[in-house]
């Protein structure tokens, strides 16, 4: 499965357009780490546990996107975009969406 955020893929041709596919996930951090992050807000610096969490969730979102694209019989997803939003205290939603296509070598 080829994933890309450009519209025209080098060396390939779009044979078939299968429409929009998406994958999303909502994740929360456990309370202990949230409190530690609260302390970090006094001192400043990177919140590694949050970075990891968001990276994991992003991977999860992409995995779901790929699953959906697979289901449609696509071999690539182009024009992928990410969106992140905080939906509740301590939880954030991560959405990945793109166009599922069938590609073939040019």
């Amino acid at each position: 499965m080829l994933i890309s955020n450009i519209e025209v893929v080098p060396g390939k041709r779009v044979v078939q357009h299968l429409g929009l596919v998406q994958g999303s996930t909502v994740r929360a951090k456990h309370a202990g780490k949230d409190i530690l992050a609260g302390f970090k807000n006094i001192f400043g610096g990177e919140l590694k546990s949050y970075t990891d969490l968001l990276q994991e969730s992003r991977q999860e979102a992409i995995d779901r996107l790929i699953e959906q694209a697979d289901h449609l019989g696509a071999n690539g997803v182009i024009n992928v975009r990410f969106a992140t939003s905080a939906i509740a205290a301590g939880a954030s939603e991560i959405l990945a969406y793109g166009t599922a296509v069938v590609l073939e070598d040019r």
Partner: protein
Amino acid sequence: MEALIQLGVFVTLLLCGYFFGRHAERKHYKSIFQREDELRHVVVTAERMPEPELMRHRFNLVSGSVVISVDYFKVVSAGLRSLVGGRLSSYESLLDRARREALLRMQAEAEAQGAEMVINTKFETSRVSGNAGQGLGSMEVLAYGTALIPPSVAG
């Protein structure tokens, strides 16, 4: 007495934020400058299409993200500043750091795959809530783009 204790806590937090925050920021900028020099050969552009001569390259989605938290001093100084309006330079440097760090992580990922260029770079910024009661809280910045890998690099 109680007011005095409250003031003491406030001043301690402020000083903690000022010293640790400044130290962290200086250290971070130093490492950013150094890594930017090291990764300069991975060209990052916001171009939507690859150059015609790069059309034979393989491609892959790469991304880098970082969550940076504010320190107490920045919150207070920005709070005071927003009374009169104007540039919040303490938050500007925070976001600048976060964005450059995210970009560097994306470049590092692209380099690990043998890419020579990253095109169509997009940024996504969001606030991580939870501990963000008032003020800015922590900012998450994501940078993502398409890495172009020369055909000579085995994949």
